[in-house]
């Protein structure tokens, strides 16, 4: 059978997506925003650390280079201090050796204080690279070196000194920086040992250093650029001159930190581009210079943003996957539920032969499917049991129906029963309860003058009561014969009913033999409600009888007999306990009082009218609440 489409107002899939997907989406948006701002900071910090490291690395590399040059110069100074004064030849050889060992050294000099070397006024041999050979020259030929910074400053400071770079005018016309190491003999200053480094090489090296999309520069301890991608800056501008020219006092402060040998990272407005840029600086300790990298902020932000963007893209993909997973899970849950829904709809239409199959797993849904299948199975069996039980009940009910039909057929049904007889009128009505009860009435002429009138109520209900009633009725017809006193007839009937009465059934019964000519009657009462004699003017009296016990109880009981006289217009009302014991839905009893009142008020009406009024009143009183048979018989003396 094909699943019919079930229209749901708020599908579970949508609900799950709303309940899980939407909060998740919100969380993700928060996380993404957080990532954008926080992770941006984080990435920036990482970036700063990276730049810091990188700059430090390059600065150390440069420092190593300078250190090697200064070591060479120290080597020469140490040699002069240790040994007796070397000859000019030895000195040249020593310096040439150092020069050949280190290509970074352009030239070396050993400049003596006046008269410190062999009583010579000035003595300063100088060796230097020239093309592929190492040449030597005497500096005293060119100038008085004792006034030169490279001589005077270490002498005054008493320590080694990397001089500010200068253009060497004397020989190579190249940008050089000179390291000077003061020399002492016996604690007395005797001159300086120097080593020159060519900054042309440095420039080439620096040109190869790339730090992101930025540029690098080196400043000396005076802030002067000795390397900058803008060649014009080299030796002309200092970081302080740029700060002044660009009116950027912050840059001057940065410059002061740089020349103080500090390490740092900061932002500033790049003078060359006018853009906000990052400046990362690190000292070159050997020469007190500072190496720096300048990276445009937009470059850094570009990198940082792309890092953040990557994270966000991963997150968005993650979110998408999670939403798909929710959808998948939701469909996984709702599909079986949809099938169950269709299944349940079919069950409600009575289709119990189906079974849900093909739902895998060991989850609650699977358990539900199992429960559904079991429920269907149980329901099917229950329904078949119920059908059988109903069938059985129906068969019993049909039997009862037959019993009732029998019972009803036993009662006189034609009224008036004796249309030709003018002396009396007789009407009776039996309002049966749902079940077969044991009320019955009967009347039959014994001869032309006498009529036997019987009203009875068999104990119990159902078929047995019906059968007992049929037996009693037949018996009463047999025993009531003209001339036999009613008490005798009652005793005869009692004896028969008592025999083999294993079920212990009994019946109350009132029997009257009425002389239609005289209005006189003989009666006997076996435990039945006493009749009421109603006059035409509405007055009434209850016929006081000997209340003998009901028939079928004691076979030896002697029944009494009484007499009564009906005047013309008098009515005798016979009834069963169903009248007085009629119960309203509020559990009130109809009672004798109400019965007598309604009889009295309607005393002038015909018997049929009276019966209608009484029936109507009883119906109105007990509504659909009738438990017992109600039987009323009215006899009126007309003449």
């Amino acid at each position, binding site marked *: 059978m094909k699943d019919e489409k079930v229209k749901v107002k708020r599908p579970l899939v949508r609900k799950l997506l709303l309940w899980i997907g939407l909060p998740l989406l919100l969380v993700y948006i928060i996380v993404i925003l957080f990532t954008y701002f926080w992770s941006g900071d984080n990435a920036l910090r990482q970036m700063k650390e990276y730049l810091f490291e990188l700059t430090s690395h390059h600065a150390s590399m440069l420092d190593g280079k300078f250190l090697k040059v200064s070591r060479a110069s120290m080597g020469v100074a140490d040699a002069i201090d240790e040994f007796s004064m070397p000859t000019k030849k030895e000195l040249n050889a020593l310096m040439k050796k150092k020069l050949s060992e280190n290509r970074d050294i352009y030239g070396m000099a050993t400049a003596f204080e006046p008269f410190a070397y062999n009583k010579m006024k000035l003595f300063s041999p100088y060796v230097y690279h020239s093309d592929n050979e190492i040449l030597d020259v005497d500096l005293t030929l060119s100038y008085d070196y004792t006034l*030169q*910074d490279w001589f005077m400053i270490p002498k005054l400071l008493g320590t080694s000194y990397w001089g*500010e770079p200068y253009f060497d005018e004397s020989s190579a016309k190249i940008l050089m920086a000179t390291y000077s190491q003061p020399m002492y003999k016996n604690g007395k200053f005797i001159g300086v040992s120097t080593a020159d480094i060519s900054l042309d090489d440095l420039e080439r090296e620096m040109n190869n250093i790339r730090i992101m999309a930025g540029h690098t520069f080196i400043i000396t301890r005076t*802030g002067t650029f000795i390397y900058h991608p803008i060649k014009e800056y080299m030796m002309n501008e*200092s970081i*302080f001159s740029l700060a*002044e020219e660009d009116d950027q006092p912050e840059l001057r402060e940065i410059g*002061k930190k740089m020349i103080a040998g500090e390490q740092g990272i900061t932002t500033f407005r790049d003078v060359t581009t006018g853009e906000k840029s990052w400046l990362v600086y690190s000292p070159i300790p050997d020469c007190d210079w500072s190496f720096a990298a300048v990276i445009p902020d937009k470059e850094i932000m570009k990198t940082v943003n792309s890092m953040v963007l990557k994270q966000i893209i991963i997150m968005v993909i993650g979110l998408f996957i999670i939403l798909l997973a929710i959808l998948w899970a939701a469909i996984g849950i709702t599909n079986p539920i949809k099938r169950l829904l269709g299944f349940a709809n079919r069950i409600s239409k009575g289709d119990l032969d189906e079974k849900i199959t093909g739902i895998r797993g060991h989850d609650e849904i699977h358990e539900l499917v199992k429960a559904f299948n079991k429920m269907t199975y149980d329901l099917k069996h229950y329904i078949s049991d119920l059908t059988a039980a109903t069938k059985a009940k129906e068969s019993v009910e049909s039997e009862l129906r037959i019993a009732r039909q029998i019972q009803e057929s036993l009662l006189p049904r034609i009224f008036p029963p004796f249309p030709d007889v003018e002396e009396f009128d007789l009407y009776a009505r039996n309002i049966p309860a749902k079940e077969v009860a044991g009320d019955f009435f009967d009347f039959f002429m014994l001869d032309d003058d006498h009529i036997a009138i019987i009203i009875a109520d068999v104990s119990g209900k159902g078929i047995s009561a019906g059968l007992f009633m049929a037996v009693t009725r037949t018996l009463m017809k047999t025993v009531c014969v003209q001339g036999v006193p009613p008490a005798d007839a009652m005793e005869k009937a009692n004896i028969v009913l008592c025999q083999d009465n294993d079920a212990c059934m009994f019946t109350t019964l009132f029997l009257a033999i009425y002389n239609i000519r005289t209005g006189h009657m003989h009666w006997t009462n076996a435990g039945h409600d006493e009749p009421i004699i109603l006059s035409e003017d509405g007055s009434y009296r209850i016929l006081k009888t000997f209340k003998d016990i009901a028939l079928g109880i004691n076979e030896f009981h002697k029944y009494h007999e009484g007499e009564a006289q009906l005047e013309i217009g008098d009515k005798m009302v016979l009834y069963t306990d169903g009248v007085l014991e009629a119960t309203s839905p509020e559990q009130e009893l109809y009672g004798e009082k109400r019965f007598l009142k309604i009889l009295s008020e309607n005393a002038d009406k015909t018997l049929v009218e009276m019966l209608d009024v009484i029936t109507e009143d009883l119906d109105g009183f007990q509504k659909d609440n009738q438990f017992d048979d109600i039987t009323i018989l009215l006899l009126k003396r007309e003449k």
Partner: protein
Amino acid sequence: MKIKKPIILFFCIILLCTHALLSQSEKSISLMVQWFPQAQFAGYIVAHEKGFYNEAGVDVTILFSDGTDSPLQEVLDKRIEFCTGWLSQTIKLRSENKPILNICQLLQKSSLMLVAKKESGIETAQDFKNKIVSNWGGDFSIQPIAFFQKQNIQPEVIPQSFRIDGFLVGAIDVTSAMYYNEYHKILQAGIDEDELVSFFFTDYDLNFPEDGIYCREETLQNEPEMCKTFIDATIKGWEYAFQNKEETLDIVMKYCREYHMQTNRSHQRWMLNAIEIAMTYKVEDDPNNWGILQKDDYYTVAEELLHQKLINTIPLYKEFYKDVAHER
């Protein structure tokens, strides 16, 4: 109308002759300044570059000394007509009867000074004791010596190179500096003004006016008009330089680059401003007052020279100085 060829030829000859005569009247002269191009000489450079000299009818060649040649000696040796020089130098020459004449005293205020770092513990000149002071030699040493004598101190003085590195690294405690040059170089090496202690000689009655324009007596005698034209155009050059500083700096920087000067624009701007201060000192901003050698300044310098026995007699002010700019 048809013009005949001989007539055209005639006019051409006339034109050529006129041009030749006019060209001849533009006198070619040379001016040598004491140092390489820098804003200290902005007025001359601007007058040359803006064509003020040519407009006035003098063709001036500006020569820049490299420190090895003496501009004054060049003038005395008749190789050039004009030069710039310090008053102290020229009074000495004059006292030696050299025919040198001051025809325009431009800088009124001495820019020479002594500078120390506060961190070296120097607050007053009395703190120079046991400190190393560096001085340039020659005329640059006259004011410091006078200063030390006046202050009654005898610090250890060592010769000073043209660089301030010794001072910057702390090898030298007190250095000589020109306010318009080295002083600013110290600032441009990352030392703030409030970290420095400055001793301006002008504050100690030692105002030695510096750059003035000099020529030989015979130059002024023979060609007074040319001299006046040259001086007027020079003053016009200075006036223009101070009024159009950025343009002036463009021109100066161009010269600096040509001469491979290790300098920068902001330094030259400082120098131009400092020169303006030195030039307008005492004589206000009015260019009409520029070029006057104040008599008291002259005698301040001369007397100090006499005191230091650098001269034996003080040359007469009137003989030494001719106010060409204001002559009628």
